[in-house]
């Protein structure tokens, strides 16, 4: 009964005005290879640091990167351009993973980003529902300050762009054909511009903090996208703002691990809205967390950004809970008590002219 009521609620929302889902646009990076790693029984972020440092030394751009740790291990997702995949694979093979059990999945992928999400879970809900209806299972997801990105199978990317034109409207391109015309000729010039950024200390516009957040991590089957979409829709109706989102495949692409953060709610709105999705493994961190974001020119495209962040954390003894890098931002989750230390560590490695808190 509860399930029926919730499904009806979704259908009512879908039948309602699409104006809440009128977006500025979407972008896609077509030819990439995505690597999903799950390092079981490993809580040491130095693995991710070693990996990102090696990729950075080889000047491999990382258009998408996620990292998360829980008590079962660590989850790393990274994407490189197809032509650089062999080089990335060699780096992965050359790293010593000690005694940890490492599960690696590789797939030809595209990165689809929609914007702006305005922190509304409804946008993530509609995206996941569109994927679900078209049998598209993202290998990984991450948000930036404005965008939500999903790594999807390369062969399904064109279908995914078409699928956006139902649940979403876009102010300047009304059909997939309009959008294709708008993208023509952009990739080459972007690559030249990305290559022109070679600063020793990457400069950001500002370091933005969201304090006092609740962290939830969820492990669900990859086939349960519609249920995840339903959860996001319920949370939107409950007034929660989605501040941080990453997901990563676990053990091939059978399961997804989500790290989600919302502004602290006095009652457990999240669990109230889980409804009958009790088969999922859901854990709420007992301590509040904080999320930071930094936006810099082509941060989600350039090599070295994730490596530099992990390095400065390592040197300061900070253990991040999760990190996501996509579009032009790098974001992270840390324990609330570490905000000052994290700010100092970041300022030691990045050129940060301003710090803002929300």
């Amino acid at each position, binding site marked *: 009964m509860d399930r029926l009521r919730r499904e009806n609620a979704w259908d009512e929302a879908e039948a309602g005005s699409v104006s809440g889902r009128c977006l500025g646009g979407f972008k896609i990076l077509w030819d990439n290879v995505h690597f999903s790693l799950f390092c079981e029984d490993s809580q040491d972020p130095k693995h991710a640091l070693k990996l990102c440092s090696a990729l950075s030394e080889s000047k491999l751009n990382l258009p998408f990167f996620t990292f998360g740790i829980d008590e079962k291990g660590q989850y790393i997702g990274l994407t490189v351009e197809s032509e650089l995949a062999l080089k990335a694979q060699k780096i992965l093979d050359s790293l010593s993973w000690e005694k940890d059990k490492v599960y690696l999945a590789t797939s030809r992928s595209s990165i689809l980003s929609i914007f702006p999400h305005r922190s509304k879970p409804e946008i993530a809900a509609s995206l996941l529902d569109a994927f679900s209806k078209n049998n598209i299972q993202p290998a990984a997801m991450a948000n930036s300050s404005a965008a939500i990105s999903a790594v999807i199978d390369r062969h399904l990317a064109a279908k995914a762009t078409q699928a956006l034109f139902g649940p979403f409207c876009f102010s300047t391109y009304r059909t997939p054909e309009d959008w294709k015309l708008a993208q023509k000729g952009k990739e080459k010039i972007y690559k030249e511009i990305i290559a022109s950024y070679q600063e020793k200390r990457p400069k950001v516009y500002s370091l*933005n903090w969201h304090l006092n957040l609740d962290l939830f991590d969820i492990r669900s089957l990859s086939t349960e996208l519609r249920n995840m979409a339903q959860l996001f829709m319920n949370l939107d109706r409950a007034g929660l703002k989605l501040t941080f989102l990453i997901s990563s495949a676990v053990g091939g692409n059978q399961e997804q691990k989500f790290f989600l953060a919302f502004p602290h709610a006095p009652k457990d709105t999240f669990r109230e809205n889980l409804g009958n999705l009790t088969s999922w493994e859901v854990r709420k961190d007992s301590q509040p967390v904080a999320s930071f974001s930094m*936006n810099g020119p082509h941060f989600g495209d350039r090599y070295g950004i994730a490596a530099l962040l992990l390095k400065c954390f390592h040197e300061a003894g900070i253990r991040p809970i999760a990190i996501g890098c996509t579009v032009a931002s790098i974001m992270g989750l840390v324990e609330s008590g570490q905000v000052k230390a994290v700010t100092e560590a970041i300022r030691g490695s990045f050129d940060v002219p301003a710090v803002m808190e929300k």
Partner: protein
Amino acid sequence: MSKKYILVVDDDPDLVETVAMMLESKGCEVGRAYDGVEGEESIKQRRPDLIILDVMMPRKDGYVLCAELKANEETKDIPVVLLTAVGEAVPTTRYSHADGMSTEADDYIAKPIDTETLWEIVNSLLS
């Protein structure tokens, strides 16, 4: 005094959000557009007090939109701040610093700029 309305036009959605967050914290109202054509349509619907305009954008770039605005009697007085992502001039394109300086924009800034400096520029042009 009514809030100043500033339009931010950039195809980097994260930058639009960062700049919007700063401007809203200073008491401005912010419009957002993600390419030159959307920016143009937005200006027709509501005249902004100032425009922050990216150079390289799909469909219509910042140079073209800026030139059109400055050639139009109705919009020529709107201050325009051009932002460029070209860290160093990219010789194979027309998006060099020299080209940017030769536009009629009221200011021309290379990214990344810190938001406080951007606010100082915006505030001085508004007043």
